[in-house]
């Protein structure tokens, strides 16, 4: 149940933008749709709204093929932001709410509610083009939210936001999901989404390379991260243990990638031999490490 892409395939000439992509955004959960630039994220999201006609495959909602009328209950924030620049913020949001089936009164009420929530109520009667970049982003988000959609599809919602904007966006995504909305959003800023998503799908060159609940994905990974600091070694220490690989050296810190059944005792002993160990931290990989590993194969 929820929003499904089933075997979505799309070619642009010789370019295979989507290659048999299937995944499900479970109702009421937040799915992070990750992948490098040009991986096919935007094509997949556009396909949800029928903006891209798939060569093969389909989009389903709660188990049945998505019907155009159901899109009225969807909210969309495209990657390339777009609003009528000469229209006032309020007129614009009321219009978009009406296009999603709200009556003019409901639309006006919802518009004011969202403008207040996003802190731009005082900009309601200004033309969009007179707004700061940050406020335009808020209006764009309001445009996706104004009809209280059941499904939110946000293409790169964090791009171009300052840290406060990022926090506001995270709060809204969380609160919408808490109220039962299904959220699909794409990003390549992996550190931002790590604490936000329930599930992830990683796509590369049009193919899904990794998917699942984030905790599960972490568990499933076949490697761990080990950070070690050895005093007076200037970060030049190297462990002499099988299955250990140095991935980074920075300010005396040596970051290692190790297999799940590595002999930690041996690594620690090797470090102790080199000098006084001030840090020895063993943890699951970060989302970006998982991502890089998945994308690079």
């Amino acid at each position, binding site marked *: 149940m929820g929003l499904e892409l089933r075997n979505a395939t799309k070619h642009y000439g010789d370019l295979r933008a989507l290659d048999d992509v299937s995944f499900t955004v479970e109702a009421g959960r937040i799915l992070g749709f990750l992948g490098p630039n040009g991986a096919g994220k935007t094509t997949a999201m556009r396909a949800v709204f029928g903006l891209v*006609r798939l060569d093969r495959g389909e989009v389903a909602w709660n188990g049945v093929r998505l019907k155009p009328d159901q899109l009225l209950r969807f909210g969309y924030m495209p990657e*390339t932001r*777009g*609003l*009528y620049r000469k229209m006032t913020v309020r007129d614009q949001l009321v219009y*978009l709410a009406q296009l999603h089936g709200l009556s003019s009164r409901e639309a006006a009420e919802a518009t004011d509610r969202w403008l207040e929530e996003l802190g731009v109520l005082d900009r309601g009667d200004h033309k969009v083009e007179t707004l700061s970049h940050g406020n335009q982003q808020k209006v764009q988000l309001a445009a996706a939210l104004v009809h209280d959609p059941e499904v939110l599809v946000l293409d790169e919602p964090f791009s171009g936001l300052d840290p406060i904007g990022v926090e506001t966006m995270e709060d809204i995504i969380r609160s919408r999901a808490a109220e039962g909305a299904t959220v699909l959003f794409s990003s390549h800023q992996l550190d931002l989404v790590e604490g936000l998503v329930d599930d992830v799908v990683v796509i590369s060159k049009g193919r899904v390379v990794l998917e699942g609940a984030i905790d599960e994905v972490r568990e499933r990974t076949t490697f761990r991260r080990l950070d070690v600091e050895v005093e007076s070694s200037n970060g030049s220490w190297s462990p002499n243990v099988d299955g250990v690989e140095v991935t980074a050296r920075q300010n005396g810190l040596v970051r290692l990638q190790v297999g799940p059944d590595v002999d930690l005792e041996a690594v620690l002993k090797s470090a102790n031999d080199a000098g006084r160990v001030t840090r020895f931290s063993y943890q699951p990989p970060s989302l970006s490490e998982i991502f890089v590993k998945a994308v690079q194969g």
Partner: protein
Amino acid sequence: MRAVTAIRLVAMREVRQRVRSRFFLIVVGITALAVAAAVIVLPKLLDRTDEPPIYKIGLVGESTSALEQALTAAAKASAASVDLQRITNVEAAETGILRGDLDAALVDGEELVIGPDTRRALQVLVSVAVQQVRFLDKLDAAGLSQAQTSALLAPSEKLQVRELGDKSGGLSQADELFTIGGVVVMLMAIILYGAAVLTGVVVEKSSRVVEVLLATLRPWHLLAGKLIGIGLLGLGQVLLLVVVGVVAALATDAIDLSATTLAAAGSALLWFVLGYSLYSVFFATVGALITRQEDAEGAALPVVLVANASLMFSMFATLADPEGIVLRVGSQIPLVAPFAMPVRAGLGVVEVWEIVLAVILMLGTIYGAVMFAGRLYAGSILSIGARVKLTDAWKSSDL
């Protein structure tokens, strides 16, 4: 959402946004004033053939009251009148003629001085009068009594005049002027509102708002709503111009409110709706094929040229022969009909079956254009490159 609701919302937005623009209101106001001014002023600049001309004739040197009477009588006979002025010398008379103060000067009853624009009718009139006076003088010299002379000159029975051909629907210069002016206004309205459609499409595409819209709307909802909304405004403006034109014309007695006038006004509205519908679909399509506003002018050019050529054809064909086969056939061509048909209706030289046929051909063409251009529109409205190739737009019609 029902298609009707979606289209209505799109159309309403177009109307509301434009009516709120001060620029739009100013343009509407200025064009209404211009039409009123043209209707009131232009006929006065024209030589009105149905008004009796007044010839200003300078009399230099010797002149008798008999000559003056003869001139007045001759003028009356040819449905004109004369304004006779005594001029002291030939030089003054010549200056007066060249300045346009006088139409001609008669020197000593012997010589007629005329200017480059003096009408032949005036020359005839003066020579008739002079001949008459000389004839009277000869009669006098022959010793005829006053009574005999009078008897000779007594008006005989008036000459019977029989006119051939049917002059009903005859074209005065004013009629032609109003008709041609009306069609030029029609061209301007179609291009103005067609260009508004093009700009609207380009604005949505270049600002990328179209992607937000098409997430809920089908492309043809957006296209139809836009065409209808802008079309309603255009129709409103043309209606306003027609009313202003007719009221101004009636107020200044430039035209009579005849059946022909009403038919012409109705025809103007009908052909605006049809012409706008056809041309605006093409404007919308070229708008969808480009992305940047600075390309709009170049993209619009082919459509504007076709509209202008159609207007030119209609005008020249009308001037050549308003009832000729060229105009009759040409006015059935859908791209030409919006300009040619109102001309023919304005001149009262069109038959009902011709109008019906032209409307049917027009509606068929509009349907075909909507299907063809609608697909190109849908195939290109979401693409972001510099300019979309027609074939790509046709093939990649995703929507």
